[in-house]
């Protein structure tokens, strides 16, 4: 928790400062400008909502403004039409009611991604607009007028209420962004597979993102209708949805300052255009063009620019890598096997694993085991089925024959993010989350809150001294090892490491190998290493399993296996075979 607070502190402080300045400027200002500022701040709230679901979680939801409509209907009905509940309680109810609707929209998100989701949400925006136009839902007509209660009607009181709302929600978003919810949002924005392999429930991450953003939008919608007195469906039309989306993109609303900028620029521009008698379409046009520019540059819009300016002012973190080497540590070339009695079912057991893709048999009744606290290598030529095996073990293949057991417990029927509690994997390509710092990245993959000591241990194991630098600014070797570290922070029983040495230099590979050797004793896990680099395999693995065309052709002590003529013929080529 302390790490959390420390990381959010600068943002919270900046938020407070900006908000206080705003208050100081707007509170004494004439009514018209207060009104403009009020609208702007509510729009900033909507921006915050879009920021959570698109800016942070990366989901193309085009209907956030429609969720605001739910809030406005609630307030309209409860406060004006039936006098059930006064402000601000009806606001809260509105926000709460928007959540299930938001979750309903989120459900397609579980199955649809990217543009498919955009299509569904756009359809939803039109559907809500239609429902609003028909007017059968209570509160959706405009034949009422909301009168603010006396205490909110005093000079500046309503603005203050809106001001408090934005401050509160923005602070919540800042804190959430660095909590496990927020980190899971960032993870799924990058890669859902990698997120699930880290133990993140993609299901829960998506639904929480939709839920939180719906609540914010619902509250904003309620406030908007209370400000106007009443609202016609046009306030929440599909066009408004798209315009706000475009603005949110341009301002980078995933961060609080982007949302604030959205409200600010929108309010200021509409006020100015009104003064100069220019149609508001012009502003919309300019913002749309701005959003296209921002998307093409790909650097996060307004808030991205702000953050970059600030980062430039900061001193970059010193990150020195010290590679471990055999010449210093003197590890023997052939590690010894760990003795394990045959009845001991601990570790990873693969029994009769069979995977078929149509007519192709990717894995053919493969059986071997990785005893607890030991390291086994998995080698084989390209296309032999190694990655398929890892996919099957970790649950990314829907149907396979045979069984995968961890400590005697069969994993069939358990989805990937739950298998990740005991069985972790790395990916061949870089699936880390670039925006995060190493400690944050490690924190996502622990299934629980980790102490700074535990994080420190992993960072020490990886040999990474950088704690503030973003992952995408670190070198390949450190990122690769952090990916392995992220497996270990969850204290799994088994770690499957897929081609860790690919693209590393000889010295970096040696360093990697020496660190891999430490894993069983230091973290209590069994390790299966898939590799092409034979020197690494000889250094690290006492035993090796050899796959060829989906079949296990050897499982033996490494030196013996690599000397086996069948293995050499299949994989090492006649060059080495003739040398034997």
């Amino acid at each position: 928790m302390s790490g959390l607070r420390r990381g959010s502190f600068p943002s919270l402080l900046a938020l407070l400062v900006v908000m206080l300045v705003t208050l100081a400027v707007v509170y004494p200002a004439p009514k018209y400008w207060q009104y403009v500022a009020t609208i702007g701040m509510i729009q900033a709230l909507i921006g915050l909502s879009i920021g959570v679901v698109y800016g942070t979680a990366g989901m193309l939801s085009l209907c956030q403004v429609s969720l605001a409509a739910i809030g406005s209907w609630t307030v309209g009905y409860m406060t004006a039409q039936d006098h059930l509940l006064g402000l601000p309680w009806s606001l809260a109810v509105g926000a709460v009611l928007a959540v299930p609707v938001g979750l309903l929209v989120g459900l397609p998100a579980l199955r649809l991604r990217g543009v498919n989701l955009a299509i569904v949400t756009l359809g939803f925006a039109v559907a809500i607009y239609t429902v609003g136009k028909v007017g059968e839902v209570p509160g959706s007509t405009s034949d009422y007028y909301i009168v603010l209660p006396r205490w909110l009607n005093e000079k500046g009181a309503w603005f203050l209420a809106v001001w408090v709302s934005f401050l509160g929600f923005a602070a919540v978003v800042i804190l959430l962004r660095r909590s496990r919810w927020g980190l899971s949002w960032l993870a799924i924005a990058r890669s859902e597979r990698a997120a699930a392999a880290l133990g993140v429930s993609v299901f829960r991450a998506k639904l929480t993102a939709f839920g939180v953003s719906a609540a914010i939008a619902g509250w904003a919608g309620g406030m908007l209708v209370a400000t106007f007195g009443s609202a016609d469906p046009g306030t929440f039309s599909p066009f408004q949805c798209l315009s706000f989306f475009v603005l949110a993109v341009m301002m980078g609303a995933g961060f609080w300052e982007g949302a604030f900028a959205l409200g600010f620029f929108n309010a200021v521009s509409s006020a100015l255009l009104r003064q100069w008698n220019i149609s508001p379409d012009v502003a919309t046009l300019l913002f749309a063009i701005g959003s296209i520019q921002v998307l093409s540059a790909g650097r996060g819009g307004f808030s991205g620019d702000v953050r970059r300016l600030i980062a430039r002012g900061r001193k970059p973190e010193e990150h020195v890598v010290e590679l471990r080497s055999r010449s210093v540590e003197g590890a023997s070339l052939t590690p010894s096997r760990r003795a394990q009695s045959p009845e001991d079912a601990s570790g990873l057991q693969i029994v009769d694993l069979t995977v078929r893709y149509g007519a192709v048999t990717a894995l053919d009744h493969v059986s071997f085991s990785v005893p607890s606290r030991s390291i086994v290598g998995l080698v084989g030529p390209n296309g032999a089925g190694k990655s398929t095996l890892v996919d099957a073990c970790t649950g990314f293949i829907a149907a396979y024959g045979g069984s995968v057991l961890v400590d005697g417990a069969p994993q069939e029927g358990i989805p990937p993010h739950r298998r990740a509690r005991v069985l972790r994997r790395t990916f061949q390509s870089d699936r880390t989350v670039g925006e995060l710092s190493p400690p944050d990245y490690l924190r996502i993959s622990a299934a629980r809150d980790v102490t700074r000591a535990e994080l420190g241990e992993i960072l020490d194991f990886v040999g990474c001294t950088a704690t503030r630098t973003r992952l995408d600014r670190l070198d390949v070797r450190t990122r690769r090892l952090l990916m392995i570290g992220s497996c270990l922070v969850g204290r799994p029983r088994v770690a499957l490491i897929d081609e860790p040495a690919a693209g590393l230099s000889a010295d970096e590979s040696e360093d990697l190998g020496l660190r891999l050797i430490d894993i069983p004793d230091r973290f209590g896990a069994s390790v299966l290493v898939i590799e092409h680099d034979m020197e690494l395999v000889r250094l690290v693995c006492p035993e090796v399993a050899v796959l060829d065309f989906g079949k296990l052709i050897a499982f033996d002590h490494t030196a013996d296996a690599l000397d086996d003529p069948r293995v050499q013929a299949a994989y090492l080529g006649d060059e080495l075979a003739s040398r034997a």
Partner: protein
Amino acid sequence: MPDLVVESVTVKRGELAVVRGVSLSVPAGKVTVLLGSNGAGKSTLLDGISGVIPIASGKVTLDGEPIHELRRDRRAARGLAYVEQGRTIFSNLTVLENLAVAVKRGQSYDDAFVLFPELKDRRGIRAQMLSGGEQQMLVLARAIVSEPKVLLIDEMSQGLAPVIVKRLLPIVTAAADRGMAVLLVEQFAHLALGIGDRASILSVGTVVLEGSCSDLLERPDDVRHAYLQGESTAAGIEQLETRAAAQ
């Protein structure tokens, strides 16, 4: 057939100069080898020569004509062929269609099929169904079928069993024998030095050693030292890592 000449080329990835002032000559009819450890800048240099990344400074000339300001497809039209790292086949197209995209008017696939009979047998099959080795053959065939003047090859051996790499290396030599200027990038020195004519070793973005391949094969310690150059000090390590990060 023309020579490719690289003069004092600097290539940046983002704000970092990954390749700094590299000069290299790739003469026609010979295999020039470019070696170096991971992060040295080999792929980045090829990306700069082929136009995947614009070069920050320097010149690249083909037969004396500068090509470094041309768009990628125009460089291809001038006779530059680039076999990228990672077997970049068009997986949804058949073998024949993959070759068709590369071939120019009046050229035929006969040559490619003579060199790679396996591809001829599979010409109607979608490229994603091929094995790793066959895919690498397809990528090579695709480059050769357009009768290029310059052939750039980036880490052809990566992820392939040695027995397959042995099958592909003679093709590289054959390409040079036909007069192409071949630039072969490899991380594993012994493979490339065996078929190359001259070699340059890149480290931390600059050329640190150069010579004839037969000569370098006799001097393995010098080669190893060249790979490690720049790592002996902490500052050097840091430079190496930041350059690797930029890749």
